Every structure is written in structure tokens, then in C-alpha cells.
């Protein structure tokens, strides 16, 4: 360190920019970083390929569990990506809205037996139709409650801070998130217990393999070499894809969607065009929360044990997924969520379960370094 020469007059970190000595371009050294990434990628591919060849059935099974997780994340990620895209706020409370969705459906099913109302109202109805209508009404109720909750949160906690520094709103979001978790944990609200969730309909397991396809029952277990999946997996995939399409249509084809896109780009100008930006923002929150409510119900059906801190990690992972896919982009949210799901399931399956968060966040950092706006992100605008 003693040989501080004339080319670096001040040995502080800010000196680099001041230094007058001729400097070479570092672009030629890009191969180092690229090589590092390639080596990392090669390692991952090697591990995966070896395991795939080793036991393709297990690999497929793990991929399926990753898909299930990924499609749930995709639903939550939609809310994050829309809200962040329009108000540039990490809505930490979104994961807790998701939790509230689970609880609403729990109370609807367990306390009020809402899922059986078609059978009660129309006794002659076929049981399948009754289950379908009942389940859909439970889901719709959860979506409505979540949307209303999100609008309330937005009006009470975020709207007064619209012009405050973004940091302030972020802290508020954390506060709202804590409030929902711990208020929910009070005995007279949701109670702090881990509650076994009563499903509005039964979930069955199926197997698919060389012998065809069939249902798994205690009498007829899945034959060797077949892959099993459950009916809720199919429902989650279908619902998630449907919602993606619905949202895509909403944003691209409707008037309110146009207003949302306009608000995301430039709020003052949008306001000048006669759009009620506040209402658009509230609407965005509501739509995002409704998807979270749906995700909450499906999540609780798939993993039937609910408690008030249920939403923290899925919420966080979904946000990471939204960032990964490119914030503000709807297909991005889906792709990011699927990557997250696979990363988690494959890490859990082949490296070590505890390290899966590490892998998920590493993927996030690497993707952002290579593509700062995420996979589907639009080129960066100058942010406020």
C-alpha cells in the first residue's frame, strides 16, 4: 500500500473517478465473469443431468412438485408485479393478504359450510355440480374479501404517502404486514394456532405411467415406474394459466388496463388526460389482491395447514419471482415463478432442502446482474 504513486493521488474509494492516469478498458476482462457463470451453469447442468439419467421417474416427480409451487407463486407474483409496476412499492403486505385469503376460505368452509350451499338450496342437484359451485363461491368470496382488504390498506396506509419518499411507503408496507400477521394471531381473530384446513372438495391422487393412467387408492397403489400427481395440481395449473390470460386481456384490451399502463409510465400526464389515477391504483391493488386470495385458497387446499405467518415466505418468493421475470410484465411473472418453483424443488430434491432459499436468491442476483430488468423486463426508465 505504500507505493501510492502519482497516478492515484487520494487513496480513498472515490479516487478512481478522479484519477487522471490513462486507464484501460475493462471490457476485455468480461470473460472472467462470463467464465465464472458458465462454470456455475455447467455444474448445475451436470448435477441435473446426472440425476435425470440416474432416475428419470424421480426427476419427473420433483419437476411436478416444482410446477405446483411455481404456479401458486405465479398467482401471488401477479399482484406484486402489477403494484410495483404502477406505484414502485414492494407491497410487503401482499403475502399477508394471501394469508387472509386462506383464512377467509377456512371460515367459509368450516364455520359456515358455504361450500355446501348449492346442495342445501337445490337438493336435486348432482353432487359434482354442487361441489363445483360451492368451491367456486368459496373462492369468489375469498377474492372479494381480499380485494376489499387491499383497497382499505391502500387507502389508509399507502395513499397518504403517495408523494412521500418511497422509503416511507416501504416501511409502512412492512408495518401493515406485521399488523396483519400479529393482529390475525390474536385469539379472537384467527387465533395463533396451526389450523388443519378443511377442504371444500376432496383431493385425489392419480398416477400416469407406461400402464396408462389411473386413480391412486389404498387398494390400488400406483404401479412401479409411474408418476403421481394430484387433482389440486391440475386445478392450480389451470387456474393460474386462466388468470394469466384474464389479466393479460384486462391490461391489454380494456380501458382500465390502458389507464393502468399509462399510470405506470407517467402519473402526472395520465392525470392530465383525465384519468383518475388514484382509482386506477386502488383497482390495481384490488385485482392483485383478488389473485392473492385465489392463490390463498388453492394453497390452503394443496397444503392444508394454515396459520397467520403462512404468507411471509410464499409472498417473498413470489416477489423474487416477479423481479426475476421482469417487474411489470405479466408473462414475466409466470416465467419467473416457474423458475423459482423449479429451483426450489430441484434444490430440495438434489442438493439439500435448507439450501433452496440460497439457490433461489442466487439465481435472482445472477439474473439481475446479467439482465438488470429481469428476463421479460422492459428497458429501465429513470425512476423517481
Amino acid at each position: 500500500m505504500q507505493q501510492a504513486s502519482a497516478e492515484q493521488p487520494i487513496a480513498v474509494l472515490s479516487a478512481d473517478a478522479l484519477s487522471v492516469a490513462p486507464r484501460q478498458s475493462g471490457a476485455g476482462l468480461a470473460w472472467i465473469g462470463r467464465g465464472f457463470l458458465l462454470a456455475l451453469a455447467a455444474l448445475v447442468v451436470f448435477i441435473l443431468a446426472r440425476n435425470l439419467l440416474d432416475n428419470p421417474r424421480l426427476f419427473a416427480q420433483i419437476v411436478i412438485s416444482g410446477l405446483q409451487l411455481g404456479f401458486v407463486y405465479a398467482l401471488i407474483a401477479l399482484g406484486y408485479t402489477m403494484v410495483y409496476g404502477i406505484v414502485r412499492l414492494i407491497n410487503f403486505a401482499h403475502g399477508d393478504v394471501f394469508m387472509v385469503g386462506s383464512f377467509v376460505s377456512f371460515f367459509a368452509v368450516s364455520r359456515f359450510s358455504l361450500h355446501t350451499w348449492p346442495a342445501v338450496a337445490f337438493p336435486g342437484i348432482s353432487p359434482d355440480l354442487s361441489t363445483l359451485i360451492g368451491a367456486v363461491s368459496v373462492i369468489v368470496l375469498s377474492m372479494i374479501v381480499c380485494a376489499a382488504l387491499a383497497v382499505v390498506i391502500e387507502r389508509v396506509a399507502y395513499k397518504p404517502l403517495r408523494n412521500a419518499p418511497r422509503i416511507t411507503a416501504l416501511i409502512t408496507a412492512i408495518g401493515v404486514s406485521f399488523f396483519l400477521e400479529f393482529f390475525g394471531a390474536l385469539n379472537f381473530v384467527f387465533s395463533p394456532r396451526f389450523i388443519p384446513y378443511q377442504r371444500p372438495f376432496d383431493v385425489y391422487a392419480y398416477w400416469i405411467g407406461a400402464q396408462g393412467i389411473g386413480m391412486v387408492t389404498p387398494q390400488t397403489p400406483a404401479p412401479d415406474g409411474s408418476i403421481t400427481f394430484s387433482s389440486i395440481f391440475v386445478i392450480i395449473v389451470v387456474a393460474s394459466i386462466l388468470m394469466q390470460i384474464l389479466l393479460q386481456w384486462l391490461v391489454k384490451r380494456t380501458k382500465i388496463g390502458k389507464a393502468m399502463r399509462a399510470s405506470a409510465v407517467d402519473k402526472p400526464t395520465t392525470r392530465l388526460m383525465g384519468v383518475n389515477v388514484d382509482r386506477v391504483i386502488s383497482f390495481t391493488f384490488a385485482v392483485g389482491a383478488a389473485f392473492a386470495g385465489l392463490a390463498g385458497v388453492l394453497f390452503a387446499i394443496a397444503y392444508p395447514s394454515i396459520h397467520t405467518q403462512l404468507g411471509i415466505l410464499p409472498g417473498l418468493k413470489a416477489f423474487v419471482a416477479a423481479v426475476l421475470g421482469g417487474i411489470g410484465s405479466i408473462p414475466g411473472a409466470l416465467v419467473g415463478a416457474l423458475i423459482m418453483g423449479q429451483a426450489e424443488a430441484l434444490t430440495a430434491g438434489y442438493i439439500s432442502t435448507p439450501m433452496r432459499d440460497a439457490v433461489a436468491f442466487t439465481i435472482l442476483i445472477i439474473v439481475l446482474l446479467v439482465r438488470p430488468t429481469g428476463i421479460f423486463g422492459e428497458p429501465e426508465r429513470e425512476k423517481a
Partner: protein
Amino acid sequence: MELGFLLGSVVKIVAVLGWLYGLLQVMAHASRWVKIAGIVIAFGIIQIAFSLRIGNQAILNDFDAGLLFQACTMAMVALGLNLIYGFNGQFSLGQWGFYGLGAYAAAYVTYKWFNDRTSSALFVLLIGVVLAGLVILGLRRFLGRYYNLPVLSAFTLYLIGSAAAAAVAVFAGNGIASIVDPLFGTKEAPGLLSSDVALQVVFLLAVICAGIFAAEVSFLFGLPVLSLGSDYFGIATLGFSIVINTLMVNSDTILPFPEMKGGRGMIGIPKLTTWFWVFAFLLLVIVIMRNVIHSSVGRAILSVREDETAAKAMGIDVAGNKLLAFVIGSLFAGLGGGIYAHYIGFLSPGTFSFLAGFNPLIVVVFGGLGSMTGTLAASFGWMFFLEGLLRVLLGQLGTEAPTWRFVLYPIALLLLMLLRPQGLLGKTEWGFLRAPQVKPRPPANPTSDARPAASIAPAAR
């Protein structure tokens, strides 16, 4: 009687804040001797309060001592976070991870020394941080020759360099330890180095090395991650906290440290933290922080927060200053962790979960972003209010009341954000922490710590 408790708790909060105010005022005094005397008195008052008994009771009992120690470590961690977040504008949720890193690193060194009577961990950490520091500084100089260097390439080089330094440290540290260890003797026949003095020296070294270790890790992590946007940086640092926590849980399976016992928690850490050490390290952190903030580097850090583009246009190395703030902030967190580990004597990953990691953030926000005084006062107030007053208060209200604790504080946070978003103290600074009054032209005040302004940025406030 119960009213006495309540009253006592309230008085204690006021007294501690008054003590803090007095300390900061006296440190701002022009005369060096008054300064030193004031610091000694401030130290002494608390020290006497610990040992002096009125009737059957120490003025500050162990309950208060615990709160005070925790408040001081929280102050260190939160000051570091305020530097990163409040002064430099980088939304970081990783502070708790660095805190844990420092705690485990320092605890491991003294554990090995105290229980296994070996200096291997000490030498490995010592050599490791020194070597890695040299490698990082050297590489920085070397890479300074290039412009437009891709971050990833720089990161790869630093990573390889640090890994090499670590490998050398493990080899050399164990080698030196095998030579030095016989000096300890055995448990039955203690040798030269097993005295209490040696233990205190090891403790000091362990805490400092742990702080530097945390700082170096933060450099490696911050280098690629700080180039992401502010919010993305927040999420990435949150990820860091989670990953560190995972590693703690698996410290005996994935990492090779059976003494840390993974999720079962590390027991047997000697409880070496005394009021002297807590006070000394807190003072050190305050002085470093204040001198950084009120120097040209500090103004550069501030300018980055205010407007990155403008700062860049003024010739400020934006990336470098972000990194510097991050590294110093993490250093404080690491020091705080080392102090904490030797206060509690038991480390478990649960303490460092990412949810608890929001605590320093909330402290910083309550005190006011960009106010050192606010952070200090909020740390003390937070601990004495939440763990002291509220514990006594809720205990009076019946057996259900404690479940309300975590409902009350998000509400307080929300109200604060809506009514007073700049924090309780805004940008007020007390005494020592105020910007030093530099007289326009010579003779500059000789005792002032302010560096003559080689100002490359307009004072941002």
C-alpha cells in the same frame, strides 16, 4: 408497588436518554480534558449504578443491565444500518445477517480458546481477515486501472482472491496454533497463556476480527448486489439474511463447525462482555460514524443518496461510495454481534431470523433516517420501552395482554409513518454528532475532528 415498577421504568427511560444527551454534549466540548473526563464520568455513573446498592438492591439490577447491553448492541447495528440506509439511501435488510455473522465468528474464536484451549480459530480468523483485507485492497488498486470493468468479472476476481486468502489462513493459522498451543498447558496444569488477561485480549481481537470479517463479507456480497437498483438491493440483502440464517442452522452439517451445534444453539461461550467493553465499542462506533459522516467521504455518501446522477456528474464514484457505506455499516453490525455473543453466552439461529432483522430497520426509522442521534436514542428507547416498560405494563393487564405486544408496535410504526415520516427526532443531532463548526479561514479549531473541506460535493443538507 406495581405502580413503583411502572414509575421506575419510565424514570429509567428518561434517565438513560438524559445520560446519552449528557455524554454527547460533553464529547462535543472543545477541551480535550473535559472530553475525557466527561467520558470517564459517563462510564463511571453506570458502572457505579451497577454495583452500588441502596438497601438490598443495586441501582441498576441485572434486568436493567441486560436491557442496557442489548440497547448498546442494537445501537451499533442500527447506526450501521443508518449509514447504509439513512445516509446512503440503500435499502438494506441484510444488517441482521452481518450481525449474526459477527456474533458467530467472535463466539467461535473465544469458544475454542476457552473450552478447547486452542488458538487455532483465533489465528485462522486473524490471518484470514488480514490476508483477505490485503488481497481486496490490492485487487482494488489493480482493477482501478480498468474502466468499464464488468461487475461480475471484478466479483469473480475478488472471490477467488478471498478464497485463496482463506485457504492460506486455515493452513497457516492451524500451523501457528500447533506451535503456540502448548503454552496453554492443560486444564489441570494451566500454562502461560491461560490467564484472564490473555482471555480479555483474545476477546478484544475476536470482536474486532469478527467485525472486519463481516465487513469483508459485505464487500464481496455488496460488490455485485449494490449495482442492482435500490429495491432489488433490499430483496437481495433480505435473501442474504435468510441464507446466513440457513447456514447457521446447518453449521454442523453443511458447514464444518460442530461446536456451533446448528439449530440446537451454541452453548458454552464465555460471558466476557462487561459494561467497559460495551461502552468502549459503542463509543468507537459513534466516533467512527460521526467522523465519516462529517468528512468529505461522508458528503460524497450523502450526495449519492440525494441524487446519483448529479453525484456522478460531480465526479463522485457512486459505486465506490455505496460500497464504502455498506462495508462500514456491516463492520458496525459485526462488532455489535461480537459484543452480543459474549453478553448472552448462547447463540441460536432463531435470534438471527430475518423477521427479527426488521428490528434495526424499525429503530432507524423511529429515530429518523439520517439522524445519528435519533438512531442512538431510538435504540435505547426501543429496548427500554419494548422490553422494559411494556413488559411491566402488559404484565399488569392480565395474562392475555402480552399477545398484544406485536399488534401494538406495527400500529405505532404506521402512525409514525403517517404522522411524522421523518422519524421522532427528524434530523436533529445532539452535541458531538452535530456537524463540527469549521471556522471559515485559519486558524481552524485544532481540536475539531473535521477534516478541512476537500469538498467534491456540496453539503447535501
